[in-house]
């Protein structure tokens, strides 16, 4: 194996987390930084001609190539897993920018109690309120400590929205149930597609508190603190699963890459498939760098003083397991930490509504819409609901395209092909819309990741195995949400409504969200976590793990702003403290 010249920092993964760290280290220090990205290189202007539903939204051109590596899944430990041979429940991206290129750019924050879930829940309801077999944890940080970093993220992205709580002052029209914000959003809310406007008015009439969905597809031109300018969203509707054709959507390629490319001390190597983190064993315990297969197929060793894992939930976890760093979690004994706390946001279409009038659904953006969070708040009395925590309801005008949207029909239509089906599907094509619900997923001892004993990637390494299923808490939560969404749909004037039939077993074929978390979680102690809240590995202090893999349980909110807030905090701690005195930060 060839050894390359040593660098100060190597970052595995060129998505949101990895490129933000590269930008911070690159622009604020003189450290030499190398980003290793497995997928292709990419620039924001590549997207001018990508508005092709078939290649991008159906054949999923921007996602990871599963022919070389996928994950396996089983519902519980009593049987063997099978590989997920095609994309379904989640869509990890590939290439520079990662999933941050094809996202819908929804940018809510997590609720304050999320970060102290174990202690807050126990204090409020007693330890017996937590379901049997849970693995709920405190994160080792409070919302108040994280808030300044959230605000930096909103300024980076130029987030559009209406604040509902600025320093404790509640503001009508914003989300009054969320944690305090130190400032208003940098840009005002986006425009409102028709269906979302119907939802807003109906929710209000029923006494809920709808607010504009926070969006990083920005409502108007904005220049961020790094001097990056972009124009406002044009509601073309080609958003999630696409890169933004006009650059209004916040993406690593338009916010971070231009700065990185100007810095001589940072380089991005594409086609670099990292296989192992190499480390000095005890008593020295330090990461030495990473080995990877480069674009020409040659295996090389990249030594580095600092190692960052920033390669999405699955690969962060898998690289620790393959490298033998830390003890794999064993649900039978409760020993070990790597691979524990696998969670997936509970995201369901609670009510699919059919209208008499056309909705013009081709116009929209990935987060143009309205939400209400009356059942997604820390002060809700949950003792009578039969489940813990909650979620928010939403109607978004994502921008719908016909291959995916055609053929969604009221349950009363039985035909699935032929003349009757076609006639109904043509009629309902632009008269159909969904009220969604996104809820928290508690961590359980039985939901975890480890290495699969049977299936391998094209390089011969074992695939990551997910053991994952829903439990009563999630099923009851989804069940609770359905009649509420149906009531709202009725108030919107829907002529027919399909209620969500309920969560059964974890279904890898229905798109849920790309918000899978856990595996290398943060916490207060090395006994039950992999990293501290500075995302620093407990045993190897020069190894940092960035991304949703560090989240102990899944919030109702979409994770990107929280991921980025933690990256900012870690970057500050490294630059201000670690570089002067290398060692544990927590």
């Amino acid at each position, binding site marked *: 194996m060839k050894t390359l010249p040593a660098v100060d920092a190597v970052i595995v993964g060129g998505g949101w987390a990895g490129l933000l760290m590269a930008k911070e280290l690159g622009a604020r220090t003189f450290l030499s930084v190398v980003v290793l990205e497995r997928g292709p290189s990419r620039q924001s202007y590549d997207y*001018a*001609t*990508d*508005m*092709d*539903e*078939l*290649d991008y939204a*159906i*054949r*999923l051109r921007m996602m990871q*190539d*599963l*022919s070389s*590596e*996928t994950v396996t*899944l089983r519902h519980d430990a009593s049987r*063997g897993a*099978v*590989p*997920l*041979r*095609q994309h*379904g429940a989640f869509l990890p991206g590939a290439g520079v920018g990662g999933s941050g290129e094809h996202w819908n750019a929804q940018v809510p924050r997590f609720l304050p109690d999320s970060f102290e879930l174990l202690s807050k829940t126990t204090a409020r309801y007693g330890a017996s309120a937590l379901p049997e077999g849970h693995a709920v944890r405190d994160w080792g940080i409070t919302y108040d400590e994280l808030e300044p970093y959230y605000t930096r993220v909103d300024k980076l992205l130029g987030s559009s929205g209406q604040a509902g709580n600025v320093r404790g002052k509640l503001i009508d029209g914003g989300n009054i149930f969320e944690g305090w914000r130190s400032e208003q959003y940098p840009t005002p809310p986006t*425009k*409102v*597609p*028709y269906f979302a*406007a119907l939802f807003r008015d109906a929710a209000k009439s029923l006494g809920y508190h709808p607010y504009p969905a926070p969006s990083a597809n920005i409502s108007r031109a904005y220049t961020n603190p790094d001097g990056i300018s972009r124009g*406002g969203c*044009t*509601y*073309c*509707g080609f958003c999630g699963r696409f890169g933004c*054709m006009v650059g209004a959507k916040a993406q690593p390629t338009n916010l971070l890459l231009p700065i990185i490319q100007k810095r001589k001390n940072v380089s991005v190597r594409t086609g670099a498939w990292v296989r192992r983190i190499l480390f000095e064993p005890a008593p020295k315990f330090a990461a030495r760098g990473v080995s990877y297969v480069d674009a020409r197929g040659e295996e090389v060793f990249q030594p580095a003083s600092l190692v960052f894992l920033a390669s999405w939930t699955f690969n962060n976890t898998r690289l620790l397991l393959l490298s033998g760093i830390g003890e794999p979690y064993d649900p039978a004994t409760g020993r070990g930490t790597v691979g524990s706390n696998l969670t997936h946001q509970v995201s369901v279409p609670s009510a699919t509504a059919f209208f008499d009038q*056309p909705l*013009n659904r*081709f*116009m*929209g953006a990935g987060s143009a819409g309205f939400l209400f969070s009356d059942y997604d708040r820390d002060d809700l009395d949950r003792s009578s609901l039969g489940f813990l925590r909650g979620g928010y309801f939403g109607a978004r*005008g994502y921008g719908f*395209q*016909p*291959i995916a949207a055609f053929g969604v029909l009221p349950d009363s239509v039985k035909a699935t*092909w*032929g*003349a009757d089906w*076609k*006639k109904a599907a*043509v009629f309902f*094509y*632009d008269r159909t819309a969904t009220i969604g619900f996104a809820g928290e997923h508690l961590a359980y001892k039985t939901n975890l990741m480890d290495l699969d004993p*049977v*299936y*391998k990637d094209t390089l011969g390494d074992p695939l990551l195995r997910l053991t994952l299923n829903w439990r009563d808490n999630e099923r009851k939560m989804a069940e609770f949400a359905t009649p509420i969404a149906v009531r709202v749909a009725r108030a919107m004037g829907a002529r027919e409504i399909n209620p969500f039939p309920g969560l059964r*077993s*974890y*279904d*890898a*074929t229905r798109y849920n969200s790309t918000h899978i978390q856990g595996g290398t979680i943060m916490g207060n102690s090395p006994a039950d976590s992999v990293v501290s809240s500075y995302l620093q590995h407990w045993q190897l202090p020069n190894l940092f793990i960035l991304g949703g893999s560090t989240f102990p349980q899944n919030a109702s909110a979409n994770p990107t702003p929280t991921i980025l807030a933690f990256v900012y905090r870690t970057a500050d701690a490294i630059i201000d403290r670690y570089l002067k005195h290398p060692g544990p930060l927590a």
Partner: protein
Amino acid sequence: MRRRHFLTLSAATLGGVLVYSLDRKAALLSAQHGPVRIPLRFLTETEAHIVAAAASRIFPSDDSGPGAREAGVAVFIDRQLAGSYGRDRYRYTQPPFEDAPREFGYQGSATPRQIYRKGLKGLEGFHLLSPTAQDEALRKIESTVFFALLRQNTIEGMFCDPIHGGNAGMVGWQLVGFPGPRMSNLEEVEKYYGQPFRPKPRSLRQTTGAKARPTEDQP
């Protein structure tokens, strides 16, 4: 080297000429004369006729508007099967192949090409049957992987960008009121609440002026 196959379409069956107004009345703007011979990339001529006939029963041409025949769905499917999709370029296809419940997704080893080849063998002579007999034959295979694929690919061929060989003349988009890619709906997104907004469809090439290459045309 396989023998060259062509799908011959007559003017009466070729799309690209129907325009739908807002009240969904079809208007024939112009007719093309003479048959058109389209070279096939994967299917044989007989297979293409069976695919075209089956797609036409799934998505018929009738008083509710044009269907798979006018959109050129068979041409679309032929190109998809010839390209990376048809040979499962992006699917995890390593053994062992185990049976698993539906929630784990398709676990078979057969590629779309193999599924079609085998499925079409079971439909020999299908294109020569009466529409009623064709529906009967399709009902018998309704629960197969082949039929699910054929149905999904028919929808794709109805509504894809014309760059892929389906949705000829954008008949699929006109049928449902989809305008194709538009650079901006900024002025319109809040203007047409409750009213249909139906700009004339334009394809990706017409909108961007760029010659994007579809995946199936790439090596």
